[in-house]
Each structure stands twice: as C-alpha cells, then as structure tokens.
C-alpha cells in the first residue's frame, strides 16, 4: 500500500517537473538555458530507492518524455535509465547524507546524461557538432541544476528517506558482528 502511494507520488513529481520544464523554465532561465530536473529526480530515486526502481523509473519517465516531445522513441529512456542505474551505484560507494556529495553526483550525472544524449542524437540525425556551444550550454545547465539541488536539498533528503524506507529491504550489516 505504502509502495503504491510512493509510486503515485513519483508520478506526481514527474508531472510537476514536466509542467515546470515546459512552461515555467521557458521564461525563468539563465541566458536561455533551462535546468534538467528529470536528471535530479531519477538520480534521487536511484540513490534512495535502489537499482531496480531507479532503472525502471528512469526508463518509464524517459519513454513518456520521448512520446510527448522527442523525434525518436528510446533515446531519453535509455539515458535516464542509465542515470537511475548510476544513481544506485553511487549509493554503494558514497554517502548521500552530505550536501556536497549530492551536488557532485548531480554534476556528474547532468554532464553524463547530456553528453550521451547529444552523442546519440548526433549519430542518429547526423548533426554537425558544435562542441563549444554545447559545453557552454551544458555548464550553465549544470550550474542551474546545482542551485536547484541546494535550494531543495532538505526536501530531497526527506523524500529520499521516505523512499528508502519503502523500497529498500532492511539489510543486516554482517561486518558489524
């Protein structure tokens, strides 16, 4: 029951972020560049709810974005699925209780997600690469994501631990015995 509520809340978070990305950030932007809150959302889900939930939420969210607006279905689904997977991997090696660690994770995954997305699209649609412009935009987008993560850190932590409680099984840490 609690899991169902959590899934419903995740879907609600997706809808709110989608609405913000399509409407609010088209005018509230830094030099015409919007943040990418989907990366932050899927990272948090992967980090707190585990590998399976992270990957599946990433794929479903990516598919929805692809269906709503993209030219090819699957690119965003693959890259967001990967974000969920890496989020879960990072949980094993780093502490998510520190604000700095979370910010570093957001930086790494925003950069990775956008580079991968741009590279796949460039191959599929034969883009002529504009790397300097791409990296300038990516830097602004990453900065925007960092600022939003700092602002919403308390909320992220709260929601994250609620997710962890419902999705992750309690493990006995044998090394303490």
């Amino acid at each position, binding site marked *: 029951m609690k899991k169902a509520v959590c899934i419903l809340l995740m879907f609600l978070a997706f809808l709110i972020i*989608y609405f913000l*990305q*399509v409407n609010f950030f*088209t005018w*509230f*932007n*830094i*030099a*015409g*560049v*919007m943040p*990418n809150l*989907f990366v932050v959302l899927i990272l948090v889900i992967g980090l707190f709810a585990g590998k399976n939930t992270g990957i599946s939420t990433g794929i479903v969210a990516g598919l929805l*974005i692809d269906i*709503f*607006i*993209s*030219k090819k279905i699957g690119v965003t689904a693959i890259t967001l699925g990967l974000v969920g997977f890496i989020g879960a991997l990072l949980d094993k090696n780093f502490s998510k209780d520190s604000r700095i660690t979370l910010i570093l994770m957001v930086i790494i995954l925003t950069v990775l997600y*956008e580079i991968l*997305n*741009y590279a796949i*699209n*460039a191959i599929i*649609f*034969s*883009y*002529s690469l*504009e790397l300097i*412009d*791409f990296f300038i*935009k990516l830097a602004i*987008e990453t900065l*925007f994501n960092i*600022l*939003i993560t*700092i*602002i919403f*850190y*308390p909320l992220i932590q709260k929601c994250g631990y609620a997710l962890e409680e419902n999705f992750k099984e309690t493990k006995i840490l044998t090394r303490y015995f």
Partner: protein
Amino acid sequence: MYKKKKSGVIGIVVTVIILILLVILSNIKIENLTVVENVFSTIVMPFQNGFTMLKNKISGNDTFFTDLDNLKNENEELKQKNSELEQSLRELEIIKAENTTLKEQMNLKEKYGEYNTVSGYVINRDISNYTGMVVINVGSDDGVQPNMTVIADKGLVGNVVSVTANTAKVQTIVDPASSVSCIISTSKDAFITKGSINGSGREIRATYIPTDAVLVQDTSVETSGLGGIYPKGIHVGTIKEVVNTKNPTDKYATIETAVDFSKLDTVLVILN
C-alpha cells in the same frame, strides 16, 4: 545543531537570491535599465518633493495646497474613477488579445492563400536545451501528415515529423537535425541551412555556400523549393553574419530566423 540548521536555511536563502539574480541579469537588456532609474527616482523623489514644497512656501506659490478638503474629495472621486477605468482596461486587454490571435490567424490564411492550409496552436515545447521540437494541436484528423511544411506569420517554422489523431510533432528549423535548401532572395545563390544550438534559439547556419556567392548582411533568405519538403519562396530569415575561412568552401553564414520560436503561438500547416 540549531546553528547548523540556521546556517542551512541561510544557505538556501542565499542560493535562491543568487539564482533569481542570475536569471534576471542574464535575461536583462541594456535598454531596459530604466528599472535602475526608477529605483533612484523612488529614493530621491520624497526629498525633491519636500524641497519643492519648501521653495513654493518661501516664494508664495503655495495657494495650490490651501483648499485641502476639496482636494481630498476630488481625490476620492478620481480614485473611484480610476478603479473603474482599470477594470474596463482589463476587459479590453482580454478582448484585444483574443482579437490579435484571430487576426493573426486570418492574416496567415490570407498571406498564404495559394496553399491549402490548416491552422493550429503550439501546445507543447521542447524540454531540452539542445533540440527544437514543438507539438501543435492539429493531427491526422485535420489532414496533417508527416513531412508537411509548417509556417507562421513571419516565415518558415519547420516540418511535421510525426502525427497522432489530434496532435503533430514539428521539427523546427533551429533543431540541429534540420536542413533546409535556401536561396538568397536577391542574388538567388543557393545553399543549405542547418539548425544550430548556439545563440538565443533564433540562429541557423548557412553551409555549402558556392565560392562565388556574394553574401551581404541583412539580406533576406527564402526556401528554394528543392528537397521535396518545403515549397519555394517561404521567408526563412536574414543574414546576420558572414564568416570567411581560409578554405573558401568552408565559408559559412549565420542567419537569424524570421520566426521567434520562444514566442511562437499560431501556426499554419500546408496540406498540399
């Protein structure tokens, strides 16, 4: 513990302020700096008024302020009138906006009367900073098919890439995957324009420019009709900058699109 919590709150507040400042500063135009002027005048005005009143008193020009009761009544009446006028102004603005949209649609139909078209609205925009897609509210039920040309009042928007019964995805000409065969309106020199991620979302790049072509700034560019998607003679934009390279075959130009995609609202899909 309390100190840590307090510093966390301060951190968030500071970040919010930085974010808002960044957004405002990055989007501000230099000519819009009248805001600063307003702030200064707000600070200076009370002092200036005080000094003026004092000066009037000394020079005997204060008869204007004698009949205070009358002035108060007049002020109340004016306030009442002002609120009524504001109300009617709001109503008028709504009607004006509606009128503009309808006019825009009618003008579009008249302007492109030679084509069989269907009009629609932009209902969804791209969430990515690196692509340029929009979704419009007309689909296969309205006769829209993939590869059809989409135009707006000012010029070319792009082409339809996929359709559902009631919506269509449009790849705009600023999308990096988009290529349009164009000609210069005056000299008829042909080249290919490609979408670009640089600039303010209104720039495309002209490539494969013939070595003997003369490109002049502010010259109008239109579709050539080659390529099978876009009809001939649709306005694309104007040449903004010509970049000459060592190798003349690598020469390129930046074109500013006629359509401002951030404000794109009403579009026409050419059906034939």
